[in-house]
């Protein structure tokens, strides 16, 4: 193929002077701006280090919709255990419905929640069958809204305890310790 001389090119032959002015910054501010690479990389590295330090590989325990957890200062790290949530008047175990609290709220008396009891007991049996010979830890985490009355908390707590989960933990939002 024969070699030809190049034709007219933008910014040399084509008289788009306003484009050339704009790009090169003659007469007015340039569209392009200089960025200091050193500062930018420093910033990116600091951001990466900060995010890596606050990163949690274990993920986070999901909070049921409508549950506002109370906050506490002297809390322990979360553990992997069945999660009993009290959202509104509904009780959920690991997201599955396990009864409701209406009867307790109406009577204002402590009572066992049968559905919750059966579900937790079933989970306990499954755990024991899967790990024969191992001691059952009996740990359950309660995720309860801050406005729920104590009678509901006590009923759920007692039901969990009688289903074979005496080590009950209350899920909270951890806050930094205040100076008293």
């Amino acid at each position: 193929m024969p070699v030809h001389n190049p034709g007219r090119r933008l910014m040399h032959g084509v008289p788009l002077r306003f484009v050339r002015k704009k790009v090169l910054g003659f007469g007015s501010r340039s569209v392009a701006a200089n960025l200091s690479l050193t500062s930018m990389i420093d910033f990116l590295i600091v951001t990466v280090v900060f995010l890596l330090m606050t990163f949690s590989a274990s993920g986070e325990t999901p909070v049921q919709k409508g549950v506002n957890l109370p906050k506490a200062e002297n809390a322990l790290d979360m553990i992997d255990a069945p999660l009993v949530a009290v959202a509104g008047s509904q009780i959920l175990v690991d997201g599955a419905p396990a009864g409701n609290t209406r009867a307790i709220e109406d009577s204002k008396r402590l009572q066992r929640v049968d559905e919750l009891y059966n579900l937790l007991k079933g989970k306990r049996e499954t755990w024991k069958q899967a790990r024969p010979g191992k001691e059952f830890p009996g740990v359950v985490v309660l995720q309860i809204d801050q406005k729920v009355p104590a009678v509901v908390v006590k009923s759920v707590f007692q039901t969990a305890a009688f289903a074979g989960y005496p080590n009950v933990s209350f899920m909270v939002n951890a806050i930094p310790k205040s100076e008293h």
Partner: protein
Amino acid sequence: MAGGISVEGGSGSRRAVDSEINMIPMIDLLMVTISFLLITAVWSHMARLNADAQVPGPPRPDEEITKVEPEKQLHVEMRDQDKSKFTLVWKQGATVVNSIDVPRKDQVSMESNIEVVRYPELAAKISEEWKNVGSHRDPTDPKLDQAVLHTDNDTPYSNIIGVIDAVYQTHRPRNLGSKTEPVSAFNVTFSVN
């Protein structure tokens, strides 16, 4: 340059001391890492407050029953009718060792639209009581003193958490292997009666 140290390749066959990093893939990598970490970031830290239940276990006819001296327990009563005080009662079995009233002052603050209830006076009093009456104060002692929380049926959950948090505020040193770390002085039991 006079007196300067050249780190460039030089004219010999030796390899250069420094090497160039291609900036574009490096910045790409940093950007992707930041995006990943931001997407997976968790800004609210979930935690838990432990509160054991004391329930009778199944009868064990094969085990011989040995009589054990009951330990002192701190009972925190928040069942006052006019909600004006807490009562701290140290009991050894059924025997009341010591009993004091603490004025109830709910310190309520709003943090991210959530009501936080604190009881600093109660926490201070419990700490003082534990220093005087507590049984397990030695760093080598693996056991913790027991606190039992009693509340009425109408108390909101946030207040219960406030009281449990106040009980857990008392700390003591404990030997964990080769190092000593501060741990909570109490283990809380939530009484359902």
